[in-house]
């Protein structure tokens, strides 16, 4: 048996750091399932798209449907609503977007009815609701005003109401999602 007292310091450091690195990566990987289990699960993601029949919605009327647990606003816009929305100078907006980019057919405005500030549901769907300074929607939680194209005009919300993915199946029927 031979003994070797000379220690190769570099080799030791390398082994030390390499072992530590593997352990750190392994611990990190082991944490991932513990974290990811909280993300939306398969049943939540599977929530299918919905179809909405627009024929009963009169001019000037709004309806609210539920998609993925969220309210979706559908408004049958009047001529004045559309004109007001188109007349705005896009450059002056907080979240610049033209009315054209927010609708597929100008008379139908479809958006997720959740205030982009902290998630309340703005008023303006029902007759007699406060529609805010721009005659669209008004969020009472912290005072955000949206215009007739659902764009943020005043108050703390940073973004326009979100337009969900949707398509017209027929002239009077849409599919959201």
């Amino acid at each position, binding site marked *: 048996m031979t003994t070797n007292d000379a220690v190769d310091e570099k080799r030791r450091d390398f082994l030390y750091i390499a072992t530590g690195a593997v352990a750190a990566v392994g611990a990190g990987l082991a944490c991932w399932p513990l974290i990811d289990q909280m993300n*939306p699960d398969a049943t939540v993601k599977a929530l299918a798209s919905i179809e909405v029949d627009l024929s009963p919605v009169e001019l000037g009327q709004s309806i609210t449907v539920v998609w*993925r*647990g969220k*309210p979706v606003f559908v408004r049958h816009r009047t001529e004045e609503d559309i004109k007001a929305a188109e007349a705005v100078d896009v450059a002056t907006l907080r979240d610049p977007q033209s009315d054209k980019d927010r609708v597929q057919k100008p008379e139908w405005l479809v958006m997720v009815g959740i205030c982009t500030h902290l*998630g309340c549901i703005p008023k303006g769907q029902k007759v007699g609701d406060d529609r805010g300074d721009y005659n669209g929607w008004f969020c009472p*939680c*912290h005072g955000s005003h949206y215009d007739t194209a659902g764009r943020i005009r005043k108050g*703390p919300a940073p973004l326009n109401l979100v337009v969900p993915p949707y398509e017209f199946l027929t002239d009077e029927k849409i599919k959201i999602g």
Partner: protein
Amino acid sequence: MSGHASFEPTNKIVKWFEDRLPVLGLAHASFVAFPTPRNLNYWWTFGGILFFFLLVQIITGIILAMHYVPHEALAFDSTEHILRDVNYGWLLRYLHSNGASMFFLAVYIHIFRGLYYGSFKGPREILWIIGVVIYVLMMAAGFLGYVLPWGQMSFWAATVITNLFSAFPIVGEPIVQWLWGGFSVGQPTLNRFFSFHYLVPLLLYVFVILHVWALHVVGNNNPTGVSVKKDQDTLPFHPYYTIKDSYAIVAFLLIYFWFVFFNPNQLGHPDNYIPADALVTPPHIVPEWYFLPFYAILRAVPDKLGGVLLMFGALAVLAVLPWLDRSKARSLTYRPLMKGFFWIFAVDAVLLGWLGSQPAEGIFVTLSRLATAYYFAHFLIILPLVSKFEVPRPRPASIMDAVLEKSGDADEAKS
């Protein structure tokens, strides 16, 4: 700090045990012999009151969890079931809901005590910072618990508060969906909030132990702010402060029971007796009273991220307090100028609370902005400047001197 009796068991079995695990000695040193300044006033009893309420919350909470069902279809009904059907369920639920309010009332008094007497200053910085951690954990527990009955306020509080995280660019949205376990607040959210609501008070318990440990390393501050110098400055914790604390707890219980037995819903919001509805936001959302000042700060800022950052900043600034106040004197009793500013700050904090309960419109917004600006100015401008330039009044040489001076015996003591 020595000088008071130490633990010497006479019983053989106790001694045998003590030689192997000296836990009784630790308890004796911490809560019997512990040398405590002899001049503590009633503001010092709130630590004990807080500990009492932590126990109340944990005990009533564990019992409520035996009857509560964390499911979106059953949560509201199971809470009603506790109130109406479970034996003494009404008592347990009202003890728990009002207990949370009393816990916060006590912690606010406890914190303002620390601000007034300079208890956050060296050598108690770590003690203070652990206190801030405790406060933040308390807020988490209060928020999570408020969601559980699944009324309208529960649901919308959960929505608004989780959405705070969406203010952060890029990571915001994924974080919020991760918190929700969905695309909106729903069943997964309720279920995990229940799990966390059970966890946080146990974490609190751990931090309270650290808090008391840190306290027992550096010792209590006292109304003069003068450090303990000799044995005569202190008294053993038992019986002097066990009795004083018990008396204060009983007095505080009177307020608690006034709410529990006569006005159990006074501090809550009537809308929380309406079951959660994901499609209707109540016209006027308000958090529980103890969050109102921070809610006012959040709403004062016309920018989403700005509001969120300022709100968290209002808490964070407390943690760095020991380094903002440069004065050599701890107690404001000897700092007349700073004492004035302390009271203005106290009024400002209450004003913010009131503004948080008002709608976010017109004059309320303007006032919220002014009060928010003052809140930060107090910590970041007034405190550093005043503490730098104000010359404190002469302080007593020792705690004993201060005590005797009050009773008119100062000369005798000196001789």
